[in-house]
């Protein structure tokens, strides 16, 4: 499924003295099978933007197209099943006595049979490395486990696009790398992922495309190497090292991910990569 935003504007509380224009005409597309990283500071419009992908927010002006069709013409609940949105701090929405029941909530609402629900819940928890937690209370889990269970609750609906809004905020470094690894596995399984973060280093590890928002507008968009090397002030540490060194060494190339950068620096040092 391909989602396209065309000149999307969004004004909160329009027509009042509190009106705020959070998006000022944003155009971009989410291509099937890609991991799109959306980055930008607090207040840049990231969360407002992603809520347009499944029409939780309706644009004040502009259009959202799903496979070329105006999203407003589509069935809203079906759209929200196909585009699964995981909010910031999603563990706050955990509510059931056990992990299994919590993850089963959405598939049950979809009207699936008991057997199929159980199967889906099992598969989803397995995929997230949380199978062993099925019978536990979601409230007695660690921060990273809770986060994964909350994501499982959205994945169990069988979405085509998964939108993660700041999925690593507040987690310890290991839980963060687990989540980044998970995004890689979802991509490998054919899922389209929109990954919102203000941590450039983690976006660099997973994104096929990057969109930088600033003040409600797209500041740059494209392949990570293009975007980051075009403006090293908004780039992850790997790119800043290579950019600082690369001026005199074109052979360094434009590495973005950690492994690529390490290999490129080793080449410069004259060691076997």
């Amino acid at each position: 499924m391909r989602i396209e935003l065309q000149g999307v504007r969004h004004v909160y509380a329009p027509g009042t003295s509190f009106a705020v224009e959070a998006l000022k005409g944003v155009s971009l597309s989410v291509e099937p099978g890609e991991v799109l990283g959306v980055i930008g500071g607090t207040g840049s419009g990231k969360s407002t933007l992603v809520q347009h992908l499944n029409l939780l927010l309706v644009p004040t002006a502009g259009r959202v197209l799903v496979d070329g069709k105006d999203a407003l013409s589509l069935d809203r609940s079906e759209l929200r099943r196909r585009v699964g949105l995981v909010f910031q701090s999603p563990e706050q929405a955990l509510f059931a006595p056990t992990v299994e029941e919590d993850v089963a909530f959405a598939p049950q609402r979809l009207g699936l049979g008991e057997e199929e629900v159980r199967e889906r819940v099992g598969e989803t928890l397995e995929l997230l490395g949380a199978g062993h937690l099925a019978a536990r209370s979601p409230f007695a889990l660690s921060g990273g486990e809770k986060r994964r269970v909350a994501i499982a609750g959205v994945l169990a609906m069988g979405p085509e696009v998964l939108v993660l809004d700041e999925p690593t905020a507040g987690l310890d470094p290991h839980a963060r790398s687990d989540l980044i690894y998970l995004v890689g596995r979802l991509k490998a399984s054919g899922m389209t992922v929109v990954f919102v973060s203000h941590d450039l280093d983690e976006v660099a590890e997973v994104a096929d495309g990057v969109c930088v928002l600033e003040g409600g507008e797209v500041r740059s968009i494209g392949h990570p190497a293009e975007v980051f090397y075009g403006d090293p002030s908004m780039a992850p540490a790997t790119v800043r090292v290579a950019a600082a060194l690369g001026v005199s060494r074109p052979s360094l190339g434009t590495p973005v991910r950690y492994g690529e950068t390490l290999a490129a620096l080793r080449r410069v040092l004259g060691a076997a990569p």
Partner: protein
Amino acid sequence: MADPTSISCEHLTFSYPGAAELALSDVSLKIPPGQYVGVVGPNGGGKSTLVRLLNGLLTADSGRVQVAGLDPATEPFEVRRLVGVLFQNPDNGLVAPFVEDDVAFGLENLGVERAEMRERVREAIASVGLAGYERREPHTLSGGEKQRVALAGLLAVRPEVLLLDEPTAMLDAAGREEVLSRVRDLAGSRTVLHVTHHLQELFDADRVLVLNGGRLAADTTPLELFSDAELLRENRLVLPTVPKLAADLGLPFCRTPEELAAAVARRSRDGVQAR
């Protein structure tokens, strides 16, 4: 204060009601006044429990705590005058309609005289770089600004000890830098205990405590911690990208991308030829 030790814990042990495992187990340490101490370790390691024992929100099962010469368990109100705590989420701590009222809140509770209160509030707001924000409403501020308002509220009370419990966890890069640079300004003038998951925030710390499974797994310096791969791994700590690249390349510790780029250039063969 005459007491040469700002924070002292002896065989501190604590468990939460109903929990099978100890949240803190036999932790002993002494921190002299003015030291800047980082606290790191995995989730559930005991970091926040330690902070809560130091200001009397929790009471130890056994062992002794002293902060600025006082026992927080028996004299919590005295201790809280001397110890300011900055928590993760600034939205939970801001109470008043305007920035200046919020910063004055602690002083009002202490019954500080009005003229002095005005002066201290002005000073505290200026010291976190928010002069001119006095009449702003806290809910209109960015996360970094809110967290600095909360910090100003602590500083106005002039605490001897500051406990920072993941103060940047909810902030973006810009907000994080705003808060950290203000915190760094305080180094030396007060005792600071700074709990964080981000090792890069502790490059300048005098000392780092590693808490894991309720135990004090290490009491060391940032440089030693960063160069001890074993210690990092055992405690689920991850080096920031730049020092990690430096370590993987066999280069000495580097903190900024520019430093690392320069180190690579110096070491590289073509760099040598160019010279």
